């Protein structure tokens, strides 16, 4: 059975691109375009990994990260942050708030796939 990855990003073409890349690597991919959609997905799903953008149209990725860490059912789901923010402070904060990894945009395929492979099987 293939691993299932939830991608949360408000840019349709980013969602599309990640979908294309991860599918070709054999992952099953579910997409959410914002905080609300992500919460809806997570309420009925238990993905093997969440790829999470921090700046979303309807709120902040930080809120989704906190939801996940505080939910008994989902607290072990690894989260990889996918963000254009590359400051050490932001990366440090993400890791201390429970993110498993951090990939800065723009990224090449191997960076994305590497992070997904490392963390999706790591839990």
């Amino acid at each position, binding site marked *: 059975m293939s691993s299932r990855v939830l991608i949360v990003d408000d*840019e349709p073409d980013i969602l599309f*691109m990640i979908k*294309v*890349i991860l599918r070709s690597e054999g992952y099953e991919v579910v997409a959410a375009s914002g905080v609300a959609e992500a919460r809806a997905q997570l309420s009925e799903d238990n993905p093997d990994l969440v790829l999470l953008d921090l*700046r*979303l149209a309807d709120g902040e990725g930080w809120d989704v990260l906190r939801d996940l860490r505080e939910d008994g059912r989902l607290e072990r789901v690894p989260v990889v942050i996918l963000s254009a923010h590359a400051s050490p402070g932001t990366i440090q904060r993400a890791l201390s708030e429970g993110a498993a990894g951090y990939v800065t945009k723009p*990224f*090449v*395929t*191997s960076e994305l796939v590497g992070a997904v492979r490392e963390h999706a099987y790591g839990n």
Partner: protein
Amino acid sequence: MLDYAIFLLDESGHILSWNAGAQRIKGYKPQEIIGKHFSIFYPEEDLAWDKPGRELKTALQEGRVEDEGWRVRKDGSRFWASVVITPLYEADGRLRGFGKVTRDLSERRLAEEHLRRSEEEFRMLVSHVTDYAIFMLDARGYVQTWNAGAQRIKGWTADEIIGKHFSTFYTQEDLDAQKPERELEMAKTAGRVEDEAWRVRKDGSLFWANVVITAVYDDDGHLQGFAKITRDLTDRRNAELAKDRFIANAAHELRTPLSVVIGLSSHLRNPKAVEDPEFPEQIDALARQAIRMRTLVNNLLDLTQIVQGKTRPLSEVRLDDAVERAMLTLPPPDGTSVDTAIGPETVRADPGRLDQVITNLLSNAYRYGGKRITLRSEARAPDLVVLEVADDGPGVSSELATVLFEPFKRGAETQAIEGSGLGLAIVKGFVESFQGRIDYAPADGGGARFLIYFKRGEDR
């Protein structure tokens, strides 16, 4: 000894000898002057109170007399002289006469006068400079002088601040760190210290200051005090910060399209990618994001032109033609209607930039506005044409309305809609380059409404 007139007088002041210096300075030859009384060298006003006689008397009493004053040459011209008269005695103590040494100080006096005047001018200059605070501190840091610039930048008048310690200008944080003392110490050691930091005005507000403190020594090498020059760089700092923010924003805006282009193109290198049924969509996404980057780069170039104040020659453009061109370039999407009511007036504009202004407002209305869009024009005053672009959509929040025309300000509700965040900044810049103005004023139903004021062309 050409620089000194050295000659002898007898006990009553008649000239006994004459040297080459005396001839050069005073103009008399020996045969013309020997035997004459030395009062001949004094100007009338001095003769009136018998200055020559008094000087001889003083020389006798004091052992010598020294004087600086005007003396008269043979040709009647005056020179500024330094004079020393010394009584000379015979071996038996009888007065033999006087030795007189005279120097022409006219040049020195001129130089001194010159110096005095230039110091005066310099003081005037410094006191009137308003762009720089220039003032003196004594060796312990107490304010001794104050100029117009210091008053303008820092707020205190000379009366209020002279005598106060210069630490008054520092923030509490800098005082805790003993920065004022350290800066004087450094100026003493290194001759000069420069700092760029916050300083405090009289009203307690802060300004970003460039400060240079220079140690001032007198001729003997003793520390006299410090010269302090302060500039207010607050505006420049704000401009630099705004520029940094702008560059950070532009880089950020480029990241998303770059991510897609880099991500998809590295995926598409896989030979099997072509077999993917979604292959055409992948190519489309790639092209779409490349175009988005082109748009962003073009927008940045437009804004750069605006910031640099580059204008294009204005001509008279018919507004109805411009609106028609925009509608052809950018036809409304399905379900959206555009009503136009544009008069035949011409406006002062650059045609290319005007087209960009209208298509930009139109595409904003398509993307963020409602389904009914109206474009109307109205000739108001004899030389004013107003173009109104309105829609029946949700309009703009009041917070966003205040920063609507600033670069990279976008409403939260529009984040998901593609856009560089530069469009309205460019629209505003272009309209202003037409010597016009753009305002945002909500439409009656709450929708967005932009009002553009143009200078009317000479069509009347």
